[in-house]
């Protein structure tokens, strides 16, 4: 039981997908202009993550190694489309504000990375728990970022007025530069926390931190960066 709990909490703090593994940066930056959007995106991705982890874990012995990645992508795309239709039918306003980033969950690196690194090697229960933990970690970070950006950029949190009307909001926080900036500060805070606990900080250099390392066949050969380094020497 303790081990199962570990699978679940792993994704929330220690291996938080956005802040520690730096996966799924596109939706993290794009949809967090409001806290509500952050939650919507997070929950949609969590649903896909849990379902795809479960399905892939069930099928892990059936899928031949050769077509692993295309098979995973098809399964994930299937779940994404299902979620997309349900969101359209039951939460149309969320569908509108997430726009193109809803179908783009397919290529959210978190989902494929967890399928490849975890679900394809573990049985169903741990895979579901891992997906749930990762999803919740993703949702929490997105909501937090949405709250910060909405508060600074619009003077509201979850649509409720906080400082709007008294202080002119800094619109720049809703614009792309604000997204990069807030994310940078959050990562530096999480790095500081990690350092205090004696964990590694996120450097994001080379294959080790490449979002696609899990399914890049050349990752172990050093692929993109290593080759350059050799040339430069």
């Amino acid at each position, binding site marked *: 039981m303790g081990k199962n709990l570990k699978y679940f909490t792993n994704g929330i703090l220690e291996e938080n997908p956005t802040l520690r593994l730096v996966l799924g940066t596109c939706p993290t930056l794009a949809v967090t202009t409001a806290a509500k959007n952050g939650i919507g995106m997070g929950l949609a991705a969590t649903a896909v993550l849990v379902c795809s982890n479960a399905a892939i874990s069930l099928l892990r012995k059936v899928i031949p190694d050769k077509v692993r990645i295309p098979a995973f992508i098809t399964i994930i795309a299937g779940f994404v489309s299902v979620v997309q239709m349900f969101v359209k039918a039951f939460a149309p306003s969320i569908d509108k504000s997430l726009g193109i980033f809803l179908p783009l969950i397919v290529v959210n690196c978190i989902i494929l990375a967890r399928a490849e690194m975890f679900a394809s090697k573990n049985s169903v229960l741990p895979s579901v728990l891992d997906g749930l933990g990762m999803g919740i970690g993703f949702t929490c970070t997105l909501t937090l970022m949405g709250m910060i950006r909405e508060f600074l950029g619009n003077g509201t949190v979850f649509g409720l007025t906080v400082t709007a009307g008294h202080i002119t909001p800094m619109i720049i926080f809703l614009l792309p530069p604000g997204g990069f900036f807030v994310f940078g500060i959050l990562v530096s805070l999480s790095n500081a926390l990690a350092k205090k606990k004696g964990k590694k900080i996120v450097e*994001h250099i080379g294959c080790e931190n490449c979002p696609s390392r899990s399914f890049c066949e050349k990752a172990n050969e050093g692929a993109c960066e290593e080759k350059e380094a050799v040339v430069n020497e």
Partner: protein
Amino acid sequence: MNKVTAITSILLAGILTNNMVLSKFLGICPFLGVSKKVKTALSMSIAVTLVMVIATAVTWPIDTYILKDNLNYLQTVVFILVIAAIVQLIEIVLKKYIPPIYKALGIYLPLITTNCAVLGITLLNVQNNLDFVSSLFNAFAAGTGFLLAMILFAGVRERLETADIPEFLKGLPITLIAAALVSLSFLGFAGIGG
């Protein structure tokens, strides 16, 4: 508006005002991951542009003539599978017939299937009801915009390596803050916002 003006405005919007990476947040992963050296950034973006244009040329007819009316719900699945297949095909063809190009671009190809900029641009093209020629130009413009952003940012990062960075910003945070400044400069093309 005649055809030439329309296409010019598509190109300008794609490269500058609506830049794929810096204002639409598509393709952030390679933008942060593969932008350490100008040369790698260049090869990666050329590969991305190539795949974007070819993927649009294939997905646009599929969507318009097969999926549009009744099978719209298969759009996401079909598009991603088509992109994955195209990437594989390009890899095989390059490997066999043009080895020098394969040597330069090959290592980036497996990363492109899951690059959200590629799926993103094919979806945006059909969602915005662009015609076939405009879609191709839009894909090309998006790829070029990606290339511009990557190269500019790789230049910034090469300089960062020798800079004296505050302890708490070392690693990824300073990269993100540098990205914020680069995207701020792109905001200038629009005269703040729209």
